[in-house]
């Protein structure tokens, strides 16, 4: 421990530096280290377990689901029974099977929309952090605009015009409204990194700007990017559920959001079928929670002060 007598402020700075850095040369190892740091956080571990379970359920849906997602012809609005653990829908479909199949869409939308928003956020954030002058001001303005414009109303309006587009449309809408936050965070990190001496040193080493951005700056933001991905995925899952609940998605697809839409539509509460309403909502909440919990661990990487442990 060589930093112990460095006074607190610099100690913290250095701790951050060393934390966001540590032993890895390749981005792959960085990811592995991020993963292990995240895993060391108790809350994050719960999140990873829950997310893992959901992903397994989604992958093995064909094996796990007792019936097909749209298979109907069972008793309508039936209560839970041995044949239908969570009852049936008003259309005579098995709720449990829909729940299991539905996980595919929610997870797919969450991951894809999260990934796309993160990619856009990284591209915009990095270039914006690296350019200066008028261009940066313009980007700044646009990003701020997207930040303050209320996302869901914008999504609703866009979705209303682009109706019938299905999952692809939802992903597009979620990405359009979801990239700005990450871009802002990554931009400020890029700015702080680009003023670091090792970036200037890379210029002196004759590196081209492209290589500086992707080999010097980007790998140092791994934890932020990972965090942004989980945040964006959480937002995407909730947004997807909201849009589908309002009937603005593709209602023919079985997902947790459309299950809630049909449940609302056939008044599942009224028919006493509240498992139909409760279960998809709980799954959405658990999935989103799992991502939030994972981000507790990811936060700990970018800000060591947030790591687990009693402080006072």
């Amino acid at each position, binding site marked *: 421990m060589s930093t112990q007598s460095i006074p*607190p*402020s610099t100690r*913290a700075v250095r701790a951050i530096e060393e934390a966001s850095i540590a032993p890895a040369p390749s981005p792959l190892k960085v990811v592995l280290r991020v993963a292990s740091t995240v895993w060391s956080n108790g*809350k994050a571990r719960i999140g990873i377990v829950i997310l893992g379970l959901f992903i397994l359920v989604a992958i093995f849906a064909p094996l796990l689901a007792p019936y097909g997602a749209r298979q109907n012809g069972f008793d309508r609005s039936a209560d839970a029974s041995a044949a239908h653990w969570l009852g049936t829908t008003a259309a005579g479909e098995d709720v449990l099977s829909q729940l299991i199949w539905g996980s595919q869409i929610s997870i797919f939308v969450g991951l894809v929309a999260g990934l796309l928003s993160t990619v856009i956020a990284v591209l915009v954030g990095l270039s914006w952090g690296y350019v200066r002058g008028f261009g940066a001001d313009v980007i700044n*303005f646009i990003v*701020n*605009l997207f*930040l*303050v*414009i*209320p*996302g*869901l*109303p*914008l*999504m*609703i*309006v*866009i979705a*209303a*015009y*682009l109706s019938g587009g299905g999952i692809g449309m939802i992903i597009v809408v979620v990405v359009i409204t979801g990239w700005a*936050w990450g871009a802002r965070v990554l931009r400020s990190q890029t700015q702080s990194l680009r003023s670091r001496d090792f970036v200037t040193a890379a210029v002196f080493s004759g590196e081209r700007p492209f290589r500086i951005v992707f080999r010097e700056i980007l790998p140092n933001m791994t934890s932020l990017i990972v965090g942004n991905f989980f945040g964006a995925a*959480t937002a995407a899952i*909730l947004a997807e*559920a*909201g849009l589908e*609940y*309002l*009937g*603005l998605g593709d209602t023919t697809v079985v997902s947790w959001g459309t299950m*809630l839409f049909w449940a*609302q539509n056939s008044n599942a*509460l009224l028919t006493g079928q*509240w498992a139909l*309403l*409760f279960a998809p*909502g709980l799954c*959405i*909440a*658990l*999935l*989103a*929670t799992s*991502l*939030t*919990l994972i981000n*507790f661990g990811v*936060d700990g990487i970018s*800000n060591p*002060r*947030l790591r687990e*442990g*009693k*402080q*006072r």
Partner: protein
Amino acid sequence: MTSVTIAPGSADVSAAPRITGSGRGRAWAYVARKAGLLLLTLWAAITLNFILPRLMPGSPADAALAKLAQNGPVSDATKAAIEAQLGVPTGNILEQYVAYLHQVVTLDFGVSYTFYPQSVSELVSTALPYTLVLVGVVTIIAFVLGTLLGVLAAWKRGTWLDTLPTLAGSFASAFPYFWTALLLLFFAGYVGRLFPTSGAYGPTATPAFTIGFLGDAIYHAALPALTILITSLGGWILGMRNTMISTIGDDYVTFAEANGLKPRTVALRYAARNAILPNLTSFGLALGGVVGGSILVERVFGYPGIGYLLFNAVTNQDYPLMQALFLMITVSVLIANFLVDILYGVLDPRTRR
């Protein structure tokens, strides 16, 4: 000491940045800068609102006519009459834009396709107060409460005062708004019959500023408010906790402890007071999300606000209404953000420099 004497202290005192201009002048400059930005952002949002429908497939005019035609045969004469009545846009894109800007400035958004002959402005102005009060008040309550809990969690880090609110908060904030609303509606409204299940006030009441009516209004707003509170509280707790944990590690907190200040003073006036600043910015940016969530909440509770109206407009393809509502929501959020900026300026002396 050497031959050249330097007055002790003079070197660094003179090196202090010169303090020019009056504090008030700088404060106004800050407000003016933020107001300028607000206007620019407003313009951009208004323009976006203009461009959006024009980027989308199908013209709003066609959609409007198709909508009206559902009621029965539309003769050519009627068609023309309706076109004129609804103010279906004419002229080239620039003329439309100018006309549109004029409409926005005069708050004349034309006639609602769905609720004809009611004008859009009329519909918006009846709904707006409910949403503003509901969302505004609840958001502020949630922010204040969440911030306080966050302070407590950070200060008592590692104890149950930390773990419980953080875990519960992060779980609750992952609830879809409408789902929380549905659960509350069902259990507290229909099964428990504790609260009314729809409307902003009793069915027979007439809005007035009397104690009775206000009480009734609060009673009716209880469930929607609780929904927004439950789902948004966690975010504020977490945000405050995390920034406060950072400020607790700052030197001025250590120094305040070294000076033997009371723990409460250190926690509130030093650690929390500084942690709240970045959180305030997040507050401004999160407002859009809360307003969005409230749309779903209003839909579930049949609360006669902007959100419910927007939902109606969307399901009925009432484009003028939809656009006006989107604009209203955006403008409200922008203005709220502006106010937050001003508050930030008041709270942070550094912005006045």
